């Protein structure tokens, strides 16, 4: 609970600093606040002996939620530091920062809800600031369009999710997850329809096929810094919520409707990788890459109680770091090519700025799943779990689509290392280049960090 209060107060504090004309303190305050949030999570760790229900039993901070909260605050911290220069001259910086923090607040609720009411509120607190952020480049028609599409499809998804919640309430007479889980044995058709509608609503949020159409458009049109936030913290939060719902509360439903999940994963993987190959716009390409990763993470949800949440957290962490670095580099490159985000902007990047080229290569290879990068470990774990669950067809599709995906990641890498006659403008090194460096190191280090995850018990 104190995590949630801290993050909301931090958002208000940032706005207050703007009113008091102390804008120089904004970023240090945010960094301190997020570090404090991480410390809170660490202090609350393993306090399972007393039931950790808060807010009238509507929030539950157990170890899984604390771990997710920790990961989200770490990713947000990385985001705030890595995008510092982008905001340095922006007069509306405080508003944008505050909105981002409120969105993070929604992410924390998504990791810690224990009632369907807080689930709905969390998903809306997560999304509404993002609609604003996606459309925040007011003069750009593309940003307007992205914001509009995100808003519309997002509210449509929320409405579908909400109808599902109403039906589940009708079947069980309770919003409380534990009560619903206990009543789940009845297996009425009302609860099945309700769960399917909630699954459709969540599929929108995580951009899984066949509800993924918005993702490439929104990722392309939004200002790239927010795309970086959307594809990492927001997607991770949606998965945290989804895991809690389908792997714990509706475990019966997930067991009995496994074929629905398998069909969704197969469709997501095939669609994302086949269509992704045709993309020449790098932001769209990364969006399709994000969709295919959503397919992998969905497998953790499908396996339900038999899969340990810590591996989902591991996957979210490794994918998010790689994705955030990739988007931030795209942001750099496009800001030096007058807004051109086509893949041609990456031609000969190694000459223009070797640090960026190497960091981009690392993150793309990690997303492709090459050892010894952390993305490989995540894919290895989920494929192993699917094999143990006797889903041989699914594992074959996962491996084949990973190979196909390799093709489009390698195309970008080859472009970056193509020697150019006329190298054009050199992209200067900037202050926060070291953060990209740290991120790249993390991508490698987390590969070995998997063994630490193996040891942690919760």
């Amino acid at each position, binding site marked *: 609970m104190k995590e949630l209060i801290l993050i909301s107060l931090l958002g208000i504090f940032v706005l207050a600093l703007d009113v008091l004309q102390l804008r120089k303190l904004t970023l240090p305050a945010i960094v301190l606040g997020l570090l404090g949030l991480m410390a809170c999570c660490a202090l609350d760790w393993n306090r399972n002996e007393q039931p950790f229900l808060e807010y009238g039993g509507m929030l539950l901070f157990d170890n899984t939620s604390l771990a997710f909260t920790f990961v989200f605050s770490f990713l947000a911290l990385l985001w705030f530091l890595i995008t510092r220069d982008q905001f340095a001259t922006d007069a509306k910086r405080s508003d944008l920062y505050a909105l981002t923090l409120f969105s993070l607040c929604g992410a924390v609720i998504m990791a810690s809800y224990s009632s369907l009411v807080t689930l709905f509120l969390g998903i809306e607190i997560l999304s509404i600031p993002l609609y604003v952020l996606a459309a925040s480049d007011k003069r750009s028609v593309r940003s307007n369009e*992205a914001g509009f599409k995100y*808003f519309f499809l997002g509210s449509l998804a929320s409405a579908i999710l909400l109808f599902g919640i109403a039906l589940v309430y009708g079947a069980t007479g309770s919003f409380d997850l534990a009560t619903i889980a206990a009543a789940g044995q009845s297996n009425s058709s009302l609860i099945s329809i309700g769960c399917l509608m909630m699954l459709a609503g969540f599929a929108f949020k995580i951009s899984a096929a066949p509800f993924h159409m918005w993702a490439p458009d929104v990722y392309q049109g939004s200002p790239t810094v927010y795309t970086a936030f959307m594809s990492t913290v927001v997607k991770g939060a949606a998965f945290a919520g989804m895991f809690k719902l389908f792997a714990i509360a509706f475990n019966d439903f997930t067991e009995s409707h496994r074929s629905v999940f398998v069909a969704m994963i197969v469709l997501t993987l095939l669609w994302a990788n086949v269509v992704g190959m045709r993309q020449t716009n790098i932001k769209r390409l990364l969006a399709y890459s994000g969709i295919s990763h959503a397919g992998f993470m969905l497998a953790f949800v499908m396996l339900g109680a038999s899969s340990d949440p810590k591996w989902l957290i591991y996957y979210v962490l490794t994918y998010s770091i790689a994705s955030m670095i990739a988007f931030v580099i795209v942001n750099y490159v496009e800001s030096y090519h007058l807004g051109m985000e086509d893949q041609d902007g990456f031609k000969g990047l190694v000459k223009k700025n070797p640090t960026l080229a190497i960091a981009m290569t690392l993150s793309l290879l990690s997303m492709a799943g090459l050892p010894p990068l952390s993305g490989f470990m995540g894919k290895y774990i989920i494929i192993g779990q699917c094999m143990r669950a006797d889903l041989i067809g699914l594992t074959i599709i996962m491996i084949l689509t990973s190979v196909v995906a390799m093709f489009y990641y390698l195309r970008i890498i080859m472009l970056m290392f193509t020697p150019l006659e006329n190298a054009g403008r050199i992209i200067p090194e900037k202050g926060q280049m070291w953060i990209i460096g740290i991120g790249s190191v993390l991508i490698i280090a987390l590969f070995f960090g998997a063994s630490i995850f193996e040891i942690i018990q919760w």
Partner: protein
Amino acid sequence: MALLPNITIDHYLYFSTILFCLGIAGILYRRNAIIMFMCIELMLNAVNVALVAFSKMYGQTDAQVFVFFIMVVAAAEVAVGLAILMMLYRNMHTTETDVLDKLKF
């Protein structure tokens, strides 16, 4: 429900489902952004009807309180959505969604 004994929970549920489907159909077939907004509101209100009916059936107030939360969230959504729409109108001079085709490959 006691006043009208012939109306059971099923009727409320059918009514709410029809409203919800009308909302979805409106979003799929209408191209005017304002109408699409109204359709979203219709869907949320369909949920409210279902929740209140279930709440009465179980004799609990949980769902009725939830309805107030939904209304608050709907108001927040409309505030953000209309702001986005205003911005779009300033740039495009129309509220028809057909003009939104800048983001295609």
